[in-house]
């Protein structure tokens, strides 16, 4: 294995609709991440982008995204219709292949253009689930309900998570109406426009980068069965497996892709995090959820905490699909 470090990270998020286009949104973020890495742009070995044309409603929007990185003369480029955390995984694999020494990963999530409750069902099982067009909040509520029925957690536990995130009083939050019982608005993520970029460097190049090196010590992703009915929604075996493979444990900070408050309870159990671990010091997806970039931001925020010496070892989690269907775990460590 080659040592790979996160040498630069930048993100921009807003819960107000962004008036510019995707390029205008992501370009300054890419520039900031590259500048932080100490690399010149033409030194970067490969770019891997994450975005969804469905999200912005424009065919080939992802090609225009290349304007943000400067694609002439020709660059080595890849694109995923997945969260940027998986783009980072692809870049990490490419660095393991060893023909390049650095990678730029960026993700664009202009969520305000479309309607997530219309869009997300298109990513579900096309025969059994998608034609029913379930609101993503309704599917999340199914998982929350399972936790309550199994005696794993209560609505008060969900409110405690939301209270910490929003700086509110849990009992006060419990008086709010349901949006999809047992979930309330504060248990659900806000519509967010945002972008994030991470620069990865490998081997000796990483050791020459400015600032405290943040090493990727383990990274793994796993998937649950496709059918919701085939899963025990009170658990996340794919997270447990990914955490085991990535060597998660003994961390002081965890950045988790908790789009819904109850998911923190599922993930905390799957990752074996005790009360000493600070969960989502960034505020997490309940405060800012630029779909496609949210998972990459978890890795970036965890890395930023290590770079600033607020932690020596951290775990980042990214999720995708209904009820934490697909999960990525990344373990980061300071030099």
């Amino acid at each position: 294995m080659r040592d790979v470090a996160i040498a630069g990270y930048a993100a921009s998020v807003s819960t107000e609709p962004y008036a510019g286009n995707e390029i205008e949104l992501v370009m300054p973020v890419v520039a900031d991440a590259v500048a932080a890495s100490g690399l010149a742009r033409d030194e970067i070995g490969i770019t891997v982008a994450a975005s969804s044309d469905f999200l912005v409603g424009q065919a080939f929007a992802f090609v225009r995204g290349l304007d943000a990185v400067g694609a002439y003369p020709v660059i080595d480029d890849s694109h995923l219709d997945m969260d940027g955390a998986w783009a980072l995984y692809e870049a990490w694999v490419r660095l393991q292949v060893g023909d390049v020494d650095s990678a730029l990963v960026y993700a664009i999530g202009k969520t305000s253009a479309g309607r997530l409750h219309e869009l997300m069902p298109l990513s579900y099982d096309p025969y059994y689930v998608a034609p029913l067009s379930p609101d993503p909040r309704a599917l999340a509520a199914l998982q929350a309900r399972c936790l309550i029925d199994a005696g794993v957690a209560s609505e008060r536990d969900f409110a405690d998570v939301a209270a910490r995130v929003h700086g509110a009083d849990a009992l006060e939050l419990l008086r709010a109406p349901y949006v999809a019982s047992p979930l309330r608005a504060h248990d659900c993520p806000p519509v967010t426009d945002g972008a994030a970029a991470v620069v990865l460097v490998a081997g000796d190049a990483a050791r020459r980068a400015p600032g405290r090196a943040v090493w990727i010590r383990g990274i793994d992703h796993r998937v649950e069965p496709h059918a919701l009915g085939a899963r025990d929604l009170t658990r996340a075996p794919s997270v447990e497996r990914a955490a085991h493979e990535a060597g998660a444990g003994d961390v002081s900070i965890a950045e988790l892709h908790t789009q819904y408050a109850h998911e923190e309870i599922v993930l905390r159990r799957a990752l074996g995090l005790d009360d000493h671990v600070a969960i989502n010091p960034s505020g997490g997806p309940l405060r800012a959820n630029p779909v496609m970039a949210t998972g990459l931001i978890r890795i970036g925020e965890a890395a930023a905490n290590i770079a600033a010496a607020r932690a020596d070892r951290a775990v980042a989690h990214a999720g995708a699909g209904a009820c934490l269907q697909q999960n990525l775990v990344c373990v980061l460590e300071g030099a």
Partner: protein
Amino acid sequence: MSDPVERFVFPMRLHYDVAAGYALSRHLRSLAEGRFVGQRCARCARVYMPPLGACSVCAVPTTDDVPLPDTGTVETFCIVNIPVRGQGIELPFACADVKLDGADTTFLALIQECAVGDVRLGMRVEAVWASAAERSPSLASVRYFRPVAR
């Protein structure tokens, strides 16, 4: 066994609020005023028309506005013989990539007021604008391009 279900209908409808963005908004506003305004990259000096808000080569924002004339050159073209629903242009017509004088990039334009057989690479053309009353923040504010009168 009963007959297999060979198809089922899955109605879907997606709604969007698409933002033109800062650069395209500037472009559309200038078209409504009956003039072309490109943008120059501060690093490589390429002039983008239409402006994209970014230099695709340098990956930096373009912020310098560059007023451009109505005249340009046909860089490439094709003759369209296939009707497009809702378009209403008499067939056949010439569709050209036009580079305005002083610009480094091209855009798609309709060529009129000349026989399609007379369109040539390098032909000098000029924009024909819609009247001030008809113009709006829309690409339709440019009706078409025609050969520059000698």
